[in-house]
């Protein structure tokens, strides 16, 4: 069991930026997960990158100067939501 009670999401200006960010994170072997933008943040039909708090600095660093992150949010993990993975 992980102790973390939250995870973070990074939002981007466009879907192509999400795809670009995913490529970078995948190549750098940084754990992440593609999820729909949580309804609490936006009603747009968008996707974003979710990750664990301990990955935040690594991810910010990896994406810096490659792709612009428009927003970052820390979210409470729902007890019934699926899984603690990134």
């Amino acid at each position, binding site marked *: 069991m992980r102790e973390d009670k939250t995870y973070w999401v990074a939002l981007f200006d466009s*879907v192509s930026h999400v795809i670009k960010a995913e490529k970078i994170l995948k190549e750098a072997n940084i754990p*992440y997960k593609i999820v729909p933008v949580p309804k609490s943040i936006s009603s747009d039909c968008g996707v974003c990158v979710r990750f664990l708090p301990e990955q935040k600095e690594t991810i910010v660093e990896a994406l810096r100067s490659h792709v612009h992150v428009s927003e970052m949010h820390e979210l409470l993990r729902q007890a019934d939501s*699926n899984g603690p993975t990134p």
Partner: protein
Amino acid sequence: MSELVDAKGLACPEPVILTKKALDAHDEVTVLVDNTTALENVKRLASVSGCAVDVTEGSGGIFRIDIKKGQGSKSACDASPEWTHPLGAPHALPGPTILVIASGVMGHGNDELGALLMKAFIHTAVDLEHRPDMMIFYNTGVKLAAHTSGVVDDLKALEEKGVRILVCGTCVNFFDLAGKIGAGTVSNMYEIAGALSTAGRIVKP
């Protein structure tokens, strides 16, 4: 007397087909197979049909599977599992709702976008009010069930919630993913076609 089916040396799905035929005509069937894939597939056929199964491992990698129709099973051991809808999902026809993932991408046009959409879709499926009863992955769809796909945790969560996940074994073999599948049951065309033919709804993203 138990009817003997010698399925040694036969490739999938022959052992399952022969077992099914034997069960249609006999109350007790003994099947001999020489590999674990055939063993698992025959065992699954028997258990979803409500039969009692007993496996004995013999010498030289041979398995003896004794199958006996249970008192509760139908006159002919029925290969179609009985489905219940605990969530009370709306069904156009009786039968399970099956989510068919026939490719690694959602929609046609741009595959980079499609791959992204499929990941978001599978993640979302975990918390759907009306979850499917079963998900079937085939062709490039099986790549989503591999350890490294990024959605294996979602698939495991779906399984924990009672969704049955079948992964096409031929496709797993084709993409060289044997041993790399992280969720679901590696299955065969017999079971996949059987499930599709009993579906009440088929949903294909």
